Protein backbone atom coordinates (compact mmCIF):
# COMPACT_ATOMS: atom_id res chain seq x y z
CA UNK A 1 0.00 0.00 0.00
CA UNK A 2 2.94 2.31 0.73
CA UNK A 3 3.89 1.97 -2.96
CA UNK A 4 0.50 1.55 -4.60
CA UNK A 5 -1.06 4.57 -2.88
CA UNK A 6 1.23 7.25 -4.35
CA UNK A 7 1.18 5.56 -7.78
CA UNK A 8 -2.64 5.60 -7.75
CA UNK A 9 -2.57 9.31 -6.82
CA UNK A 10 -0.14 10.00 -9.69
CA UNK A 11 -2.23 8.07 -12.23
CA UNK A 12 -5.46 9.80 -11.16
CA UNK A 13 -3.85 13.27 -11.12
CA UNK A 14 -2.31 12.70 -14.56
CA UNK A 15 -5.64 11.53 -15.98
CA UNK A 16 -7.40 14.51 -14.40
CA UNK A 17 -4.86 16.97 -15.87
CA UNK A 18 -5.07 15.33 -19.31
CA UNK A 19 -8.88 15.34 -19.39
CA UNK A 20 -9.21 18.96 -18.20
CA UNK A 21 -6.72 20.04 -20.89
CA UNK A 22 -9.21 18.97 -23.58
CA UNK A 23 -12.23 20.58 -21.90
CA UNK A 24 -13.53 24.06 -22.51
CA UNK A 25 -14.67 25.85 -19.38
CA UNK A 26 -12.53 23.75 -17.06
CA UNK A 27 -9.98 26.53 -16.55
CA UNK A 28 -11.22 27.22 -13.02
CA UNK A 29 -10.71 23.58 -12.06
CA UNK A 30 -7.15 23.73 -13.43
CA UNK A 31 -6.49 26.96 -11.51
CA UNK A 32 -7.84 25.34 -8.35
CA UNK A 33 -5.53 22.32 -8.83
CA UNK A 34 -2.61 24.70 -9.32
CA UNK A 35 -3.46 26.52 -6.08
CA UNK A 36 -3.52 23.16 -4.24
CA UNK A 37 -0.06 22.36 -5.68
CA UNK A 38 1.27 25.75 -4.54
CA UNK A 39 -0.08 25.22 -1.01
CA UNK A 40 1.53 21.76 -0.81
CA UNK A 41 4.89 23.13 -2.00
CA UNK A 42 4.58 25.91 0.60
CA UNK A 43 4.41 23.30 3.36
CA UNK A 44 7.34 21.46 1.78
CA UNK A 45 9.49 24.55 2.34
CA UNK A 46 9.46 23.66 6.04
CA UNK A 47 11.11 20.39 5.07
CA UNK A 48 13.83 22.35 3.30
CA UNK A 49 14.38 24.63 6.28
CA UNK A 50 14.59 21.58 8.56
CA UNK A 51 17.16 19.93 6.26
CA UNK A 52 19.21 23.13 5.97
CA UNK A 53 19.45 23.72 9.72
CA UNK A 54 20.17 20.06 10.55
CA UNK A 55 22.82 19.78 7.83
CA UNK A 56 24.78 22.78 9.02
CA UNK A 57 24.30 21.99 12.73
CA UNK A 58 25.75 18.55 12.06
CA UNK A 59 28.62 20.09 10.10
CA UNK A 60 29.46 22.29 13.10
CA UNK A 61 29.21 19.31 15.47
CA UNK A 62 31.55 17.27 13.27
CA UNK A 63 33.94 20.21 12.80
CA UNK A 64 33.46 20.22 8.99
CA UNK A 65 33.34 23.66 7.32
CA UNK A 66 32.53 25.17 10.70
CA UNK A 67 33.12 28.72 9.49
CA UNK A 68 30.84 28.49 6.42
CA UNK A 69 28.11 26.59 8.25
CA UNK A 70 28.31 29.03 11.17
CA UNK A 71 28.00 32.05 8.87
CA UNK A 72 25.05 30.46 7.11
CA UNK A 73 23.15 29.67 10.30
CA UNK A 74 23.80 33.13 11.78
CA UNK A 75 22.71 34.82 8.50
CA UNK A 76 19.62 32.61 8.34
CA UNK A 77 18.39 33.46 11.84
CA UNK A 78 19.39 37.14 11.63
CA UNK A 79 17.39 37.48 8.38
CA UNK A 80 14.31 35.88 9.95
CA UNK A 81 14.51 38.06 13.07
CA UNK A 82 15.16 41.13 10.91
CA UNK A 83 12.12 40.27 8.80
CA UNK A 84 9.85 39.96 11.86
CA UNK A 85 11.22 43.22 13.25
CA UNK A 86 10.50 45.01 9.95
CA UNK A 87 7.02 43.50 9.93
CA UNK A 88 6.32 44.86 13.41
CA UNK A 89 7.98 48.24 12.75
CA UNK A 90 6.80 49.02 9.17
CA UNK A 91 3.68 46.90 8.81
CA UNK A 92 5.32 44.69 6.18
CA UNK A 93 8.91 43.46 5.71
CA UNK A 94 8.57 44.42 2.03
CA UNK A 95 7.54 48.04 2.68
CA UNK A 96 9.67 50.38 0.57
CA UNK A 97 11.42 52.00 3.54
CA UNK A 98 11.71 48.91 5.75
CA UNK A 99 15.07 47.77 7.10
CA UNK A 100 14.43 44.31 5.66
CA UNK A 101 14.27 45.80 2.16
CA UNK A 102 17.54 47.62 2.93
CA UNK A 103 19.07 44.23 3.72
CA UNK A 104 17.62 42.81 0.49
CA UNK A 105 18.79 45.68 -1.73
CA UNK A 106 22.22 46.19 -0.17
CA UNK A 107 23.26 42.64 0.69
CA UNK A 108 21.29 40.08 -1.28
CA UNK A 109 21.03 41.85 -4.65
CA UNK A 110 24.79 42.68 -4.95
CA UNK A 111 25.67 39.06 -4.07
CA UNK A 112 23.22 37.76 -6.66
CA UNK A 113 24.47 40.21 -9.30
CA UNK A 114 28.08 39.21 -8.55
CA UNK A 115 27.37 35.55 -9.26
CA UNK A 116 25.51 36.47 -12.43
CA UNK A 117 28.33 38.71 -13.67
CA UNK A 118 30.88 35.91 -13.13
CA UNK A 119 29.07 34.16 -16.00
CA UNK A 120 30.78 36.47 -18.50
CA UNK A 121 34.20 35.05 -17.54
CA UNK A 122 32.92 31.48 -17.64
CA UNK A 123 31.50 32.11 -21.12
CA UNK A 124 34.94 33.29 -22.26
CA UNK A 125 36.67 30.20 -20.88
CA UNK A 126 34.00 27.82 -22.28
CA UNK A 127 34.17 29.58 -25.66
CA UNK A 128 37.95 29.12 -25.73
CA UNK A 129 37.54 25.38 -25.23
CA UNK A 130 34.65 25.07 -27.69
CA UNK A 131 36.25 27.16 -30.45
CA UNK A 132 39.56 25.28 -30.67
CA UNK A 133 39.57 23.85 -34.19
CA UNK A 134 40.36 20.26 -33.19
CA UNK A 135 38.45 18.70 -36.05
CA UNK A 136 36.37 19.69 -39.08
CA UNK A 137 33.13 20.08 -37.06
CA UNK A 138 34.86 22.35 -34.54
CA UNK A 139 36.28 24.39 -37.45
CA UNK A 140 32.77 24.90 -38.87
CA UNK A 141 31.58 25.95 -35.39
CA UNK A 142 34.48 28.39 -35.08
CA UNK A 143 33.83 29.99 -38.48
CA UNK A 144 30.03 30.20 -37.98
CA UNK A 145 30.35 31.62 -34.48
CA UNK A 146 32.92 34.17 -35.66
CA UNK A 147 30.65 35.31 -38.52
CA UNK A 148 27.68 35.69 -36.14
CA UNK A 149 29.73 37.53 -33.52
CA UNK A 150 31.14 39.95 -36.10
CA UNK A 151 27.72 40.35 -37.73
CA UNK A 152 26.19 41.49 -34.45
CA UNK A 153 28.69 44.23 -33.56
CA UNK A 154 28.66 47.91 -34.46
CA UNK A 155 30.31 48.72 -37.84
CA UNK A 156 30.07 45.06 -38.84
CA UNK A 157 29.97 46.20 -42.47
CA UNK A 158 33.62 47.31 -42.10
CA UNK A 159 34.82 44.81 -39.50
CA UNK A 160 33.63 41.70 -41.38
CA UNK A 161 35.53 42.22 -44.68
CA UNK A 162 38.64 43.30 -42.74
CA UNK A 163 38.45 40.24 -40.46
CA UNK A 164 37.87 37.97 -43.46
CA UNK A 165 40.85 39.47 -45.25
CA UNK A 166 43.12 39.00 -42.20
CA UNK A 167 41.85 35.42 -41.74
CA UNK A 168 42.47 34.55 -45.40
CA UNK A 169 45.93 36.13 -45.32
CA UNK A 170 46.96 34.17 -42.21
CA UNK A 171 45.46 30.93 -43.56
CA UNK A 172 47.30 31.46 -46.88
CA UNK A 173 50.55 32.29 -45.11
CA UNK A 174 50.26 29.14 -42.98
CA UNK A 175 49.61 27.04 -46.09
CA UNK A 176 52.54 28.68 -47.90
CA UNK A 177 55.07 28.21 -45.07
CA UNK A 178 53.97 24.83 -43.71
CA UNK A 179 55.66 22.68 -46.38
CA UNK A 180 57.77 20.27 -44.32
CA UNK A 181 58.09 16.77 -45.86
CA UNK A 182 56.65 18.09 -49.14
CA UNK A 183 58.73 17.84 -52.31
CA UNK A 184 58.32 18.25 -56.05
CA UNK A 185 54.85 18.83 -57.43
CA UNK A 186 53.23 18.61 -53.97
CA UNK A 187 55.43 21.46 -52.76
CA UNK A 188 54.63 23.54 -55.83
CA UNK A 189 50.88 22.88 -55.40
CA UNK A 190 51.01 23.81 -51.70
CA UNK A 191 52.91 27.04 -52.42
CA UNK A 192 50.45 27.86 -55.23
CA UNK A 193 47.48 27.22 -52.95
CA UNK A 194 48.98 29.42 -50.19
CA UNK A 195 49.62 32.20 -52.69
CA UNK A 196 46.11 31.82 -54.11
CA UNK A 197 44.49 32.18 -50.66
CA UNK A 198 46.70 35.19 -49.83
CA UNK A 199 45.68 36.70 -53.16
CA UNK A 200 42.05 36.18 -52.08
CA UNK A 201 42.80 38.19 -48.93
CA UNK A 202 43.82 41.19 -51.04
CA UNK A 203 40.89 40.67 -53.41
CA UNK A 204 38.49 41.08 -50.47
CA UNK A 205 39.92 44.57 -49.91
CA UNK A 206 38.91 45.73 -53.40
CA UNK A 207 36.16 48.39 -52.93
CA UNK A 208 33.27 46.63 -54.78
CA UNK A 209 33.90 43.26 -53.05
CA UNK A 210 34.52 45.00 -49.70
CA UNK A 211 31.21 46.86 -50.04
CA UNK A 212 29.32 43.73 -51.15
CA UNK A 213 30.59 41.65 -48.20
CA UNK A 214 30.04 44.47 -45.68
CA UNK A 215 26.55 45.13 -46.97
CA UNK A 216 25.45 41.50 -46.76
CA UNK A 217 26.91 40.44 -43.41
CA UNK A 218 23.70 41.14 -41.46
CA UNK A 219 21.70 39.15 -44.05
CA UNK A 220 24.16 36.25 -43.70
CA UNK A 221 23.94 36.39 -39.89
CA UNK A 222 20.14 36.43 -39.95
CA UNK A 223 20.10 33.52 -42.40
CA UNK A 224 22.46 31.47 -40.22
CA UNK A 225 20.28 32.07 -37.18
CA UNK A 226 16.91 31.60 -38.83
CA UNK A 227 17.64 28.70 -41.21
CA UNK A 228 20.36 26.18 -40.16
CA UNK A 229 20.23 27.01 -36.45
CA UNK A 230 16.46 27.10 -36.34
CA UNK A 231 16.21 23.81 -38.26
CA UNK A 232 18.46 22.06 -35.72
CA UNK A 233 16.56 23.63 -32.82
CA UNK A 234 13.18 22.57 -34.18
CA UNK A 235 14.44 19.04 -34.69
CA UNK A 236 15.47 18.96 -31.05
CA UNK A 237 12.17 20.40 -29.89
CA UNK A 238 10.35 17.71 -31.84
CA UNK A 239 12.45 14.97 -30.25
CA UNK A 240 11.96 16.54 -26.83
CA UNK A 241 8.20 16.71 -27.29
CA UNK A 242 7.90 13.02 -28.15
CA UNK A 243 10.39 12.12 -25.42
CA UNK A 244 8.27 14.02 -22.91
CA UNK A 245 5.05 12.33 -24.00
CA UNK A 246 6.74 8.90 -23.82
CA UNK A 247 8.14 9.66 -20.34
CA UNK A 248 4.79 11.03 -19.16
CA UNK A 249 3.01 7.87 -20.42
CA UNK A 250 5.52 5.73 -18.51
CA UNK A 251 4.73 7.64 -15.33
CA UNK A 252 0.98 7.69 -15.98
CA UNK A 253 0.80 3.93 -16.46
CA UNK A 254 3.04 3.26 -13.46
CA UNK A 255 5.84 1.76 -15.59
CA UNK A 256 8.40 4.34 -14.47
CA UNK A 257 8.62 3.95 -10.69
CA UNK A 258 12.22 4.79 -9.89
CA UNK A 259 11.19 8.20 -8.47
CA UNK A 260 9.23 6.48 -5.73
CA UNK A 261 10.23 4.18 -2.93
Amino acid at each position, binding site marked *: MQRQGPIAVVILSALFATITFFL*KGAEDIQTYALIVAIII*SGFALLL*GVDSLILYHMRNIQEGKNTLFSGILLISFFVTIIWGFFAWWRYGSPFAQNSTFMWLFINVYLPLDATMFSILAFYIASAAYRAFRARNFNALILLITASVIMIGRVLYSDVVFPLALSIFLFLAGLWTFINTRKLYGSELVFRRFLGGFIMGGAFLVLLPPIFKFLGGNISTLTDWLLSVPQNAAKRGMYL*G*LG*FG*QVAFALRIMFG*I*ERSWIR
Partner: protein
Amino acid sequence: MIFLNSLLGVDKLEIKRVDEGVVILVKFGEKLRVDSISVFKADKLNPREKPLLLGTLIYPETLLLDTTKVEGEYLVRVYYGKEKFDTGWVALNTSKVDPPKTSAISFDTSKTNILIGILLFTTLFFVLLYMARSNPKLYIRRIGGLDAIDEAVGRTAEMGKPIIYTTGIGSVDNLAILAGLTVLKHVIKKTSLYEVPVLMPNNDPLTLAAAREVVKEAYLESGRPDLYRENDVFFLTSEQFGFASGVSGMMQRLKPGAVFMMGYFYAESLILAENAQVSGAISTAGTVSIDQLPFFIASCDYTLIGDELYAASAYISRNPLEVASIKTGDWFKALSAAVISLGSILATISIFNPQVGEIVKIMVNILK
Protein backbone atom coordinates in the same frame (compact mmCIF):
# COMPACT_ATOMS: atom_id res chain seq x y z
CA MET B 1 -24.35 49.07 -24.71
CA ILE B 2 -24.38 52.22 -22.61
CA PHE B 3 -24.22 55.84 -23.74
CA LEU B 4 -23.08 58.36 -21.20
CA ASN B 5 -23.87 61.99 -21.82
CA SER B 6 -23.53 63.06 -18.21
CA LEU B 7 -19.74 63.09 -18.49
CA LEU B 8 -18.73 66.34 -20.14
CA GLY B 9 -16.79 65.87 -23.36
CA VAL B 10 -17.28 62.12 -23.50
CA ASP B 11 -19.08 61.24 -26.72
CA LYS B 12 -19.40 57.52 -26.36
CA LEU B 13 -18.80 54.95 -23.62
CA GLU B 14 -19.62 51.33 -24.34
CA ILE B 15 -19.25 48.33 -22.08
CA LYS B 16 -19.42 44.94 -23.70
CA ARG B 17 -18.73 41.46 -22.41
CA VAL B 18 -16.52 39.25 -24.60
CA ASP B 19 -14.97 35.79 -24.03
CA GLU B 20 -11.75 37.27 -22.60
CA GLY B 21 -13.47 39.69 -20.16
CA VAL B 22 -15.13 43.10 -20.41
CA VAL B 23 -14.31 45.65 -23.11
CA ILE B 24 -14.70 49.35 -22.31
CA LEU B 25 -14.76 51.49 -25.45
CA VAL B 26 -14.41 55.25 -25.07
CA LYS B 27 -14.69 58.08 -27.59
CA PHE B 28 -14.02 61.63 -26.44
CA GLY B 29 -12.67 65.07 -27.30
CA GLU B 30 -14.77 66.03 -30.34
CA LYS B 31 -16.75 68.78 -28.62
CA LEU B 32 -14.69 69.56 -25.53
CA ARG B 33 -11.02 69.06 -24.78
CA VAL B 34 -10.57 65.99 -22.59
CA ASP B 35 -7.02 65.06 -21.49
CA SER B 36 -7.62 61.50 -20.41
CA ILE B 37 -10.10 59.11 -18.86
CA SER B 38 -9.12 56.72 -16.09
CA VAL B 39 -11.19 53.57 -15.64
CA PHE B 40 -11.41 51.97 -12.19
CA LYS B 41 -13.09 48.95 -10.71
CA ALA B 42 -14.46 48.80 -7.17
CA ASP B 43 -14.43 45.37 -5.55
CA LYS B 44 -17.99 44.49 -4.51
CA LEU B 45 -16.81 42.09 -1.81
CA ASN B 46 -14.41 44.64 -0.28
CA PRO B 47 -16.16 48.00 -0.71
CA ARG B 48 -13.72 49.73 1.64
CA GLU B 49 -10.77 48.96 -0.65
CA LYS B 50 -9.55 51.74 -2.95
CA PRO B 51 -10.86 51.15 -6.50
CA LEU B 52 -8.38 49.37 -8.72
CA LEU B 53 -7.08 51.44 -11.64
CA LEU B 54 -7.64 49.37 -14.78
CA GLY B 55 -6.04 51.87 -17.14
CA THR B 56 -5.85 55.42 -18.40
CA LEU B 57 -7.09 56.18 -21.90
CA ILE B 58 -5.39 59.13 -23.61
CA TYR B 59 -6.35 58.65 -27.27
CA PRO B 60 -9.68 60.11 -28.52
CA GLU B 61 -11.00 56.69 -29.51
CA THR B 62 -9.64 53.73 -27.67
CA LEU B 63 -10.67 50.61 -25.80
CA LEU B 64 -9.61 48.81 -22.64
CA LEU B 65 -9.96 45.13 -21.88
CA ASP B 66 -10.67 44.13 -18.29
CA THR B 67 -9.57 40.55 -17.74
CA THR B 68 -9.86 40.62 -13.93
CA LYS B 69 -12.44 38.10 -12.84
CA VAL B 70 -13.41 40.06 -9.70
CA GLU B 71 -17.06 41.11 -9.60
CA GLY B 72 -17.11 44.86 -9.28
CA GLU B 73 -18.50 48.23 -10.21
CA TYR B 74 -16.90 50.28 -12.97
CA LEU B 75 -15.97 53.88 -12.20
CA VAL B 76 -14.51 56.52 -14.50
CA ARG B 77 -12.73 59.78 -13.86
CA VAL B 78 -12.41 62.33 -16.66
CA TYR B 79 -9.52 64.84 -16.63
CA TYR B 80 -9.61 68.27 -18.31
CA GLY B 81 -7.36 71.35 -18.69
CA LYS B 82 -3.97 69.63 -18.55
CA GLU B 83 -5.30 67.40 -15.79
CA LYS B 84 -6.04 70.37 -13.47
CA PHE B 85 -9.73 69.44 -13.19
CA ASP B 86 -11.49 66.12 -13.01
CA THR B 87 -15.01 64.82 -12.53
CA GLY B 88 -14.17 62.60 -9.57
CA TRP B 89 -15.29 58.99 -9.61
CA VAL B 90 -18.45 58.48 -11.59
CA ALA B 91 -20.10 55.09 -11.38
CA LEU B 92 -21.19 53.47 -14.63
CA ASN B 93 -24.53 51.83 -14.98
CA THR B 94 -23.62 48.31 -16.02
CA SER B 95 -27.04 46.77 -15.57
CA LYS B 96 -27.40 46.37 -19.31
CA VAL B 97 -24.15 44.44 -19.63
CA ASP B 98 -24.67 40.72 -20.12
CA PRO B 99 -23.85 38.74 -17.00
CA PRO B 100 -20.76 36.48 -17.23
CA LYS B 101 -21.51 33.32 -19.11
CA THR B 102 -21.72 30.29 -16.87
CA SER B 103 -19.66 28.25 -19.28
CA ALA B 104 -20.76 24.65 -19.38
CA ILE B 105 -17.91 22.19 -19.58
CA SER B 106 -17.58 20.87 -23.11
CA PHE B 107 -14.98 19.34 -25.39
CA ASP B 108 -12.59 21.91 -26.88
CA THR B 109 -12.79 21.13 -30.60
CA SER B 110 -9.71 23.25 -31.36
CA LYS B 111 -7.63 20.55 -29.63
CA THR B 112 -8.98 17.64 -31.69
CA ASN B 113 -5.72 17.21 -33.61
CA ILE B 114 -3.75 17.01 -30.34
CA LEU B 115 -6.18 14.39 -29.01
CA ILE B 116 -5.83 12.33 -32.21
CA GLY B 117 -2.02 12.62 -31.96
CA ILE B 118 -2.01 11.45 -28.34
CA LEU B 119 -4.40 8.57 -29.09
CA LEU B 120 -2.19 7.48 -32.00
CA PHE B 121 0.89 7.72 -29.80
CA THR B 122 -0.74 5.70 -27.02
CA THR B 123 -1.98 3.03 -29.46
CA LEU B 124 1.47 2.66 -31.01
CA PHE B 125 2.92 2.53 -27.49
CA PHE B 126 0.73 -0.46 -26.61
CA VAL B 127 1.52 -2.21 -29.93
CA LEU B 128 5.26 -1.81 -29.30
CA LEU B 129 4.76 -2.86 -25.69
CA TYR B 130 3.26 -6.13 -26.94
CA MET B 131 6.15 -6.53 -29.38
CA ALA B 132 8.71 -5.77 -26.65
CA ARG B 133 7.21 -8.45 -24.43
CA SER B 134 7.58 -11.09 -27.15
CA ASN B 135 11.04 -9.82 -28.20
CA PRO B 136 12.76 -8.14 -25.24
CA LYS B 137 15.95 -7.41 -27.22
CA LEU B 138 14.77 -4.23 -28.96
CA TYR B 139 17.66 -2.13 -30.22
CA ILE B 140 18.46 1.24 -28.65
CA ARG B 141 21.53 3.16 -29.85
CA ARG B 142 24.44 3.73 -27.48
CA ILE B 143 24.35 6.78 -25.20
CA GLY B 144 27.95 7.72 -24.37
CA GLY B 145 27.12 9.75 -21.28
CA LEU B 146 25.35 6.83 -19.60
CA ASP B 147 28.06 4.34 -20.52
CA ALA B 148 30.55 6.70 -18.85
CA ILE B 149 28.83 6.39 -15.46
CA ASP B 150 30.84 3.22 -14.68
CA GLU B 151 34.09 4.96 -15.62
CA ALA B 152 33.25 8.02 -13.49
CA VAL B 153 32.27 5.94 -10.46
CA GLY B 154 35.34 3.70 -10.78
CA ARG B 155 37.69 6.68 -11.02
CA THR B 156 36.07 8.36 -8.01
CA ALA B 157 36.43 5.15 -5.98
CA GLU B 158 40.13 4.96 -6.85
CA MET B 159 40.63 8.59 -5.84
CA GLY B 160 38.70 8.13 -2.57
CA LYS B 161 36.63 11.22 -3.35
CA PRO B 162 32.86 11.83 -3.24
CA ILE B 163 30.48 12.32 -6.17
CA ILE B 164 28.32 15.42 -6.46
CA TYR B 165 24.91 14.92 -8.09
CA THR B 166 22.45 17.69 -8.86
CA THR B 167 19.11 17.85 -10.66
CA GLY B 168 19.36 21.62 -11.11
CA ILE B 169 16.61 24.14 -10.59
CA GLY B 170 12.98 23.13 -10.34
CA SER B 171 10.52 20.93 -8.60
CA VAL B 172 9.31 17.38 -9.25
CA ASP B 173 6.55 18.70 -11.50
CA ASN B 174 9.29 19.09 -14.11
CA LEU B 175 9.76 15.87 -16.12
CA ALA B 176 13.48 16.56 -16.58
CA ILE B 177 13.94 16.55 -12.79
CA LEU B 178 12.08 13.22 -12.56
CA ALA B 179 14.32 11.85 -15.32
CA GLY B 180 17.33 13.11 -13.34
CA LEU B 181 16.09 11.20 -10.29
CA THR B 182 15.86 7.96 -12.29
CA VAL B 183 19.53 8.33 -13.32
CA LEU B 184 20.36 9.11 -9.68
CA LYS B 185 19.02 5.71 -8.67
CA HIS B 186 21.33 4.00 -11.14
CA VAL B 187 24.33 6.06 -9.99
CA ILE B 188 23.63 5.21 -6.34
CA LYS B 189 23.42 1.50 -7.18
CA LYS B 190 26.83 1.72 -8.86
CA THR B 191 28.45 3.73 -6.06
CA SER B 192 27.14 1.36 -3.39
CA LEU B 193 29.42 -1.34 -4.85
CA TYR B 194 32.51 0.75 -4.05
CA GLU B 195 31.10 2.65 -1.03
CA VAL B 196 31.55 6.00 -2.77
CA PRO B 197 29.61 8.78 -1.01
CA VAL B 198 27.18 10.75 -3.18
CA LEU B 199 26.37 14.31 -2.11
CA MET B 200 23.22 15.83 -3.50
CA PRO B 201 22.47 19.52 -2.85
CA ASN B 202 18.85 20.44 -3.69
CA ASN B 203 17.18 23.60 -4.84
CA ASP B 204 13.61 22.59 -4.06
CA PRO B 205 12.15 20.99 -0.91
CA LEU B 206 9.84 18.67 -2.90
CA THR B 207 12.77 17.45 -5.00
CA LEU B 208 14.69 16.96 -1.76
CA ALA B 209 11.96 14.70 -0.38
CA ALA B 210 11.75 12.68 -3.61
CA ALA B 211 15.56 12.43 -3.91
CA ARG B 212 15.88 11.11 -0.35
CA GLU B 213 13.34 8.38 -1.13
CA VAL B 214 15.15 7.48 -4.36
CA VAL B 215 18.55 7.28 -2.65
CA LYS B 216 17.18 5.23 0.25
CA GLU B 217 15.46 2.82 -2.14
CA ALA B 218 18.58 2.47 -4.32
CA TYR B 219 20.77 1.56 -1.31
CA LEU B 220 18.09 -0.87 -0.15
CA GLU B 221 17.85 -2.55 -3.56
CA SER B 222 21.62 -2.93 -3.78
CA GLY B 223 21.68 -4.55 -0.32
CA ARG B 224 23.56 -1.73 1.40
CA PRO B 225 20.99 0.25 3.44
CA ASP B 226 23.77 0.97 5.95
CA LEU B 227 25.39 3.38 3.43
CA TYR B 228 22.40 5.73 3.41
CA ARG B 229 23.05 8.99 5.21
CA GLU B 230 20.14 11.41 5.23
CA ASN B 231 22.56 14.33 5.52
CA ASP B 232 24.11 13.55 2.11
CA VAL B 233 20.92 14.64 0.37
CA PHE B 234 20.27 18.13 1.63
CA PHE B 235 18.53 21.42 0.88
CA LEU B 236 20.83 24.26 -0.13
CA THR B 237 18.70 27.21 -1.21
CA SER B 238 15.85 27.95 -3.57
CA GLU B 239 17.68 30.99 -5.01
CA GLN B 240 19.22 30.35 -8.42
CA PHE B 241 22.61 31.99 -8.01
CA GLY B 242 22.81 31.14 -4.32
CA PHE B 243 22.43 27.52 -5.39
CA ALA B 244 25.07 27.94 -8.11
CA SER B 245 27.56 29.49 -5.70
CA GLY B 246 26.85 26.86 -3.03
CA VAL B 247 27.39 23.90 -5.38
CA SER B 248 30.45 25.57 -6.96
CA GLY B 249 31.92 26.10 -3.50
CA MET B 250 31.38 22.42 -2.67
CA MET B 251 33.16 21.44 -5.90
CA GLN B 252 36.14 23.65 -5.10
CA ARG B 253 36.46 22.49 -1.49
CA LEU B 254 35.78 18.77 -1.91
CA LYS B 255 37.39 18.23 -5.35
CA PRO B 256 34.91 15.45 -6.25
CA GLY B 257 35.88 12.60 -8.55
CA ALA B 258 32.76 13.01 -10.65
CA VAL B 259 29.97 15.54 -11.01
CA PHE B 260 26.58 14.65 -12.47
CA MET B 261 24.24 17.41 -13.58
CA MET B 262 21.03 15.73 -14.74
CA GLY B 263 17.81 17.69 -14.77
CA TYR B 264 16.72 21.20 -15.61
CA PHE B 265 19.13 24.12 -15.64
CA TYR B 266 19.00 27.83 -16.38
CA ALA B 267 21.83 30.40 -16.45
CA GLU B 268 23.67 28.61 -13.63
CA SER B 269 24.51 25.71 -15.96
CA LEU B 270 27.79 27.18 -17.13
CA ILE B 271 28.87 28.18 -13.61
CA LEU B 272 28.36 24.59 -12.44
CA ALA B 273 29.93 22.97 -15.52
CA GLU B 274 33.01 25.20 -15.50
CA ASN B 275 33.56 24.68 -11.78
CA ALA B 276 33.28 20.91 -12.27
CA GLN B 277 35.90 21.17 -15.03
CA VAL B 278 38.21 23.32 -12.90
CA SER B 279 37.89 20.95 -9.92
CA GLY B 280 39.20 18.13 -12.12
CA ALA B 281 36.09 15.97 -11.87
CA ILE B 282 34.64 13.88 -14.69
CA SER B 283 31.58 15.92 -15.53
CA THR B 284 28.47 14.39 -17.03
CA ALA B 285 25.48 16.57 -17.80
CA GLY B 286 22.04 15.97 -19.21
CA THR B 287 19.32 18.52 -19.77
CA VAL B 288 16.33 19.20 -21.96
CA SER B 289 16.88 22.94 -21.78
CA ILE B 290 18.01 23.67 -25.34
CA ASP B 291 19.45 27.08 -24.46
CA GLN B 292 21.78 25.55 -21.87
CA LEU B 293 22.89 22.54 -23.91
CA PRO B 294 25.71 24.36 -25.79
CA PHE B 295 27.27 25.34 -22.45
CA PHE B 296 27.23 21.75 -21.23
CA ILE B 297 28.59 20.45 -24.52
CA ALA B 298 31.43 22.98 -24.37
CA SER B 299 32.34 22.41 -20.73
CA CYS B 300 31.44 18.83 -19.79
CA ASP B 301 33.14 15.54 -20.62
CA TYR B 302 29.84 13.83 -21.49
CA THR B 303 26.45 15.32 -22.27
CA LEU B 304 23.03 13.73 -22.66
CA ILE B 305 21.39 15.84 -25.35
CA GLY B 306 17.69 16.62 -25.06
CA ASP B 307 15.48 13.53 -25.05
CA GLU B 308 18.44 11.24 -24.26
CA LEU B 309 17.77 12.23 -20.65
CA TYR B 310 14.21 10.93 -20.89
CA ALA B 311 15.50 7.74 -22.50
CA ALA B 312 18.10 7.25 -19.76
CA SER B 313 16.05 5.07 -17.41
CA ALA B 314 14.96 2.78 -20.27
CA TYR B 315 18.55 2.57 -21.53
CA ILE B 316 19.85 1.69 -18.08
CA SER B 317 17.15 -0.77 -17.03
CA ARG B 318 16.51 -2.32 -20.48
CA ASN B 319 13.02 -3.00 -19.17
CA PRO B 320 10.95 -3.94 -22.28
CA LEU B 321 8.04 -1.82 -21.07
CA GLU B 322 10.24 1.27 -20.88
CA VAL B 323 12.06 0.47 -24.12
CA ALA B 324 8.67 0.30 -25.89
CA SER B 325 7.96 3.92 -24.92
CA ILE B 326 11.33 5.03 -26.34
CA LYS B 327 10.58 3.15 -29.56
CA THR B 328 7.19 4.89 -29.81
CA GLY B 329 8.90 8.26 -29.58
CA ASP B 330 11.37 7.20 -32.28
CA TRP B 331 8.57 6.07 -34.61
CA PHE B 332 6.80 9.36 -34.17
CA LYS B 333 10.04 11.26 -34.85
CA ALA B 334 10.41 9.32 -38.11
CA LEU B 335 6.78 10.04 -38.97
CA SER B 336 7.24 13.76 -38.28
CA ALA B 337 10.39 13.85 -40.39
CA ALA B 338 8.47 12.19 -43.24
CA VAL B 339 5.57 14.68 -42.94
CA ILE B 340 7.98 17.66 -42.80
CA SER B 341 9.92 16.39 -45.83
CA LEU B 342 6.71 15.79 -47.78
CA GLY B 343 5.45 19.24 -46.83
CA SER B 344 8.72 20.87 -47.91
CA ILE B 345 8.67 19.06 -51.29
CA LEU B 346 5.00 19.93 -51.90
CA ALA B 347 5.54 23.57 -50.86
CA THR B 348 8.43 23.78 -53.35
CA ILE B 349 6.34 22.23 -56.14
CA SER B 350 3.44 24.59 -55.33
CA ILE B 351 5.59 27.49 -56.56
CA PHE B 352 5.19 26.09 -60.08
CA ASN B 353 1.82 24.38 -59.63
CA PRO B 354 -0.76 26.32 -57.54
CA GLN B 355 -3.04 23.25 -57.24
CA VAL B 356 -0.41 21.56 -55.08
CA GLY B 357 -0.48 24.68 -52.89
CA GLU B 358 -4.07 23.81 -51.92
CA ILE B 359 -2.91 20.39 -50.69
CA VAL B 360 -0.20 22.14 -48.61
CA LYS B 361 -2.84 24.46 -47.11
CA ILE B 362 -5.00 21.46 -46.13
CA MET B 363 -1.95 19.78 -44.54
CA VAL B 364 -1.13 22.92 -42.56
CA ASN B 365 -4.74 23.29 -41.38
CA ILE B 366 -4.84 19.70 -40.15
CA LEU B 367 -1.58 20.01 -38.23
CA LYS B 368 -2.18 23.53 -36.91
